[in-house]
């Protein structure tokens, strides 16, 4: 794999020129940009991935593509409110250990139509299937369902059956929207090519998310240098109080 840091148009052109005759199918892909800097006050960003299938002969059926994007892992606790003595309070809870903080599943058509249920389960393709094995939760778990629902509203979990666009019968692009709240770290991008339900090629690349800006500085300081951060905030408060007492001095 050659890494391209060029704008997307060039990346696609480069992919096309790379096409060499090979036995069976091979998948080449590129991601732009490979390092994405998100400023915390920005509404979000997106990453574009391109891929091309190289084959010695034309396939009998058109290609299908499923792209899975997985962000850094984290543990999450889901809580459920119940009415106790007339008051709504958190009663039940379930902790999901080491699940992806970001999960995107993009395909050119609904994934159930691309491959069989067995294959999807085996390769853990799809939002729930990817999370299911990670968390070890039972199949119909309202906690997991609601976790997915909340994360989907936050655009951190994203299943788009029309997220992959074919530019030609063999070349495709996928737009990966990243909301502002994504975690910094490495993001794994798995490309899978199918034809008539049969997996043909598989390829993994990655991109990295970094955060910049004053807000990010505050977030980092608050979590990594909490004592210093607390003292600085208090000092700022005392300074403001002193300034107010000087500026608005009555005597």
């Amino acid at each position, binding site marked *: 794999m050659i890494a391209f840091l060029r704008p997307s148009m060039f990346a696609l052109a480069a992919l096309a020129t790379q096409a060499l005759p090979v036995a069976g199918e091979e998948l080449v892909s590129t991601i732009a940009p490979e390092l994405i800097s998100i400023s915390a006050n920005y509404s979000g960003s997106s990453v574009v991935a391109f891929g091309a299938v190289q084959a010695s002969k034309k396939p009998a059926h058109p290609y299908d593509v499923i792209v899975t994007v997985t962000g850094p892992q984290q543990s999450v606790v889901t*809580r459920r409110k*119940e009415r106790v003595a*007339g008051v*709504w309070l*958190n009663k039940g809870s379930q902790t999901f250990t080491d699940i992806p903080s970001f999960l995107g599943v993009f395909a050119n058509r609904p994934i159930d139509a691309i491959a069989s249920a067995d294959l999807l389960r085996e390769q853990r393709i799809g939002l729930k299937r990817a999370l299911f094995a990670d968390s070890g939760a039972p199949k119909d778990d309202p906690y997991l369902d*609601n976790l997915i629902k909340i994360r989907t509203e936050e655009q951190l979990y994203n299943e788009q059956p029309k997220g992959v666009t074919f530019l030609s019968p063999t070349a495709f692009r996928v737009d990966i929207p990243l909301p502002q709240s994504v975690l910094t770290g490495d993001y794994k991008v798995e490309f899978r090519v199918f034809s008539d339900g049969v997996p043909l090629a598989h390829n993994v690349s990655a991109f990295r998310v970094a955060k910049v800006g004053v807000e990010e500085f505050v977030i980092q300081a*608050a979590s990594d240098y909490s004592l210093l951060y607390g003292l600085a905030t208090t000092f700022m408060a005392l300074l403001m*109080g002193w300034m107010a*007492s000087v500026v608005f001095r009555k*005597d």
Partner: protein
Amino acid sequence: MLIYLPIADLPVNIFVLLATGLAVGFVSGMFGVGGGFLMTPLLIFLGISPGVAVASVSSHITASSFSGALNYWRRRTVDLQMAMALLAGGMLGTWSGIWIFTTLRSLGQLDLLIAFSYLIMLSAVGGLMVVESVRSIIRQRQNKPSVLRRSGSHTWVHGLPFKFRFKRSKIYVSVIPVFGIGYIIGVVGAIMGIGGGFLLVPMLIYFLRMPTNTVIGTSAVLTTATMALATVMHAVSNHLVDAVLSLILMVGGVIGAQFGARTAQNMPAERLRLLLGLLILAVGFRFGFDLISRPENLYSIRSLGTEP
């Protein structure tokens, strides 16, 4: 103009925050209170999580109390001995409050704790204020002189041992209730994000018989110290202090307080107290209503940390 609050993890209109700071500052200047008991609920109603609201308002209160404390210090109306004695209890209280806060947060019941504390505290204080001020307004209408408690009279508090002479306030009381009052203010302040002046001042007057001229300055010094400590401890144990949020609130609050103080001089004290009492009651009822009404989403999630 939208601004992103890094710790609250929320985009908020900066003018809405400034206006909130101004309004609460105005009210706090008008009534001579810190305003935490209004600021924290308002932030929660704006959609900021209760934990972040409490922790961030602590630093806002540090600023407003310190500005007050400096003014009273210049006028020599601070009993430093009393403030230090209160602070001994206050520090332990703040520590306990932070511990309760952190423990309940890990159990997922922090929001409930904050809502309940506000409901109880605000309905009790607001109710008392309304009743008291309505009574005195009626008394005035009937042209009866208001009944004042004799400041020299003693209570059971004065029978306690370990007595100490507080020179500036000219009182001779046991340090046990002083320590206890400080402790209560510390606990309540850390859990609720309030300075606690509206509790502290009456307690100092009724239990310790502290003279009114030193009570407010001393209270401002104690509040500055306990809230500064609470800010640092909230930052260390829960990472919930939003410095950007605090800064905006401070600017609004400090300016608003000046206008509030000027407005208050032209209003009769009983009306003012009735108004504040009604305001406090309204905020308390809102918390009660939120507790019993069905939440929009029964489920909530919280990230526990990132695996590297």
